[in-house]
């Protein structure tokens, strides 16, 4: 069990690291693209498509890690006024809703991926990519998000800070 937990934690952190590296790739890529154009060579044709894919992948691969960090924005103004038992029940209900929603996206994300795979569909951007790649992060990201929320559902830790204004934003 210990090894499974360790491997699972490694997976969540590992995916977050990949997501962070994708942000770094977006950053390095844009600078390289402009630098290459400035010295007279052709622009990196693949860059815009890869950067767009990186945005999607960084959000989805970082999603389970975000749940672990309690990084999703939540509004606690109403739930805070509830009595503790009611608040706990409400929190468990919310985790359940998030798990069901995540599993729906796992299923339909997988389905769309298989439809694109079987139909040999292509995503036409600055470079053409097999369309199924776009749907890969859905079953993976939402699947692990469901697992993370189930840790709150069946465990003792709470997703909620217990005070308003704890959420981050821009």
């Amino acid at each position, binding site marked *: 069990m210990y090894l499974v937990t360790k491997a699972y934690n490694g997976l969540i952190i590992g995916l*977050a690291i990949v*997501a*962070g590296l994708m*942000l*770094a790739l*977006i*950053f390095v890529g*844009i*600078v390289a*693209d*402009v630098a290459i154009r400035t010295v007279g060579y052709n622009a990196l044709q693949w860059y*815009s498509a890869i*950067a*767009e*894919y990186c*945005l*999607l992948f*960084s*959000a989805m691969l*970082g*999603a389970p*890690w*975000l749940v672990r*960090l309690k*990084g*999703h*924005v*939540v*509004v*606690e*103004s*109403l*739930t805070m006024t509830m009595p503790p038992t009611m608040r706990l029940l*409400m*929190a468990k209900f*919310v985790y359940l*809703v*998030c798990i069901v*929603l995540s599993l*729906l*996206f796992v299923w*339909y*994300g997988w*389905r*769309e991926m298989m439809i694109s795979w079987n139909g040999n569909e292509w995503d036409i951007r600055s470079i053409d990519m097999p369309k199924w790649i*776009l*749907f890969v992060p*859905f079953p993976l990201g939402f699947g692990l998000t469901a697992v993370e929320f189930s840790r709150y559902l069946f465990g003792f830790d709470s*997703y*909620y800070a217990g*005070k*308003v*204004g*704890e*959420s*981050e*934003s*821009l």
Partner: protein
Amino acid sequence: MEILTEWYSIAGFLVGMVILFMLLGIPVAFAFLIANIVGALVFMGDGTIIGGLQTAMPQIVVNAVESVSIFALIPVPLFIIMGELFFHTGLAVRVFDALDKCFGRLPGRLSYITVAGGTIFATLSGSTMANTAMMGSLMVPEMTNRGYKRHMSMGPILGTGGLAMIIPPSALAVLLASLAEIDIGKLLIAGVLPGLVLAILYSVLIYVQVKVDPEAAPEYSVSGHTVGEMIKSVIVNVLPMGFVVFCVIGLIILGIATPTEAAGFGALGVLILAIVYRVLTWDIVVKSFAGSLRVTAMVLLIILASSTFSQLLAFTGASAGLIEWATEVQLAPLVMLLIMFGVLLVLGMFMDQVSMMLLTVPIFFPLATTLQFDLIWFGLVMLLALEISLTTPPFGLLLFVMMGVAPEGTTLWQVAKAAAPYIGCALIVLVLLIVFPGLATYLPSLMVE
């Protein structure tokens, strides 16, 4: 659903669902997801849950994929990386130290330093929350030690914290322009003059407050600095920041770089400065990218989750109905503008800025087009409303950021009271924008295409 036939009942149902789910404590991204699914089941399905899901879900998944894999959103993570690097490397503290040397024995000097430092931060960081937390933790303890009253210490921080939303680089402005499908570069540049006017108004306010009550910001002995020392400090610690500001604002105005390229060069500029100052470490790079991922993923997931919302409003006829109503009632455009402004302020009392935008942009921008508003100007007015709503009680996010760094025993009411005159300044800028729209549209008109 017999009752859901009129545009207002449909719009109320859809918007109400999102707000209700948020209030129940469902994470914002998931509140949008469930509202989209329920909305699609009600309006697009065949009456059965399974049938409705089979029809709606593939579309929701495809919309989600397409909503965040777009090039227009690239500046969002880049501006966030820029701000994270700026704060983690300690470059922000250098700016404050330099300003501290320059302000001499001016009454209320720490409040002025906050406004000046906050305005410089706003040109270097795209995150309001990070700016406020940074200034709060730096300046509040110092001002408390010097006997500054709460409204003189917390007010300027709350006011200038919000400037990051208006003055470029602003991740929120990029998001707004991308959602509303308006020129990102123009909206970014449109914020420069109103942002500076707001900073000047804040300084005037501090001057008046110190004049009325000199005890609110007691004078204290400041170690003297020669003019040479001041100039040297500014040249070493503040002037190089101008290079980063030029990378973002200058390159966009001159038409040399797109907003995305400018964002990349802004982040590179901060990185170069950190290397030059020898403050860049591997640990700081990791921290900065982890912080950037956290905020970027959170924002992108909300966008991804809400992607079907605007389509539902359009598909059900709610958007068209609202526009038809707005045309028929013949309310003055100014009244409509104030209504929209008011709605944003109310939403801001309990909602974060990204959610507010995603909820209102699909409704407000078609309306603004019908009312023949300049959309860049309207975008800026919306940003101003978002900025104000950050400090409106009971749940304005900045109030709570400030509570986290304020001296023990500070109440929310005291923080809100300190912010009130600064909200007044923002409202003056709103009036100025209405009377002189050029304040927002002049700089964008100079931009080289």
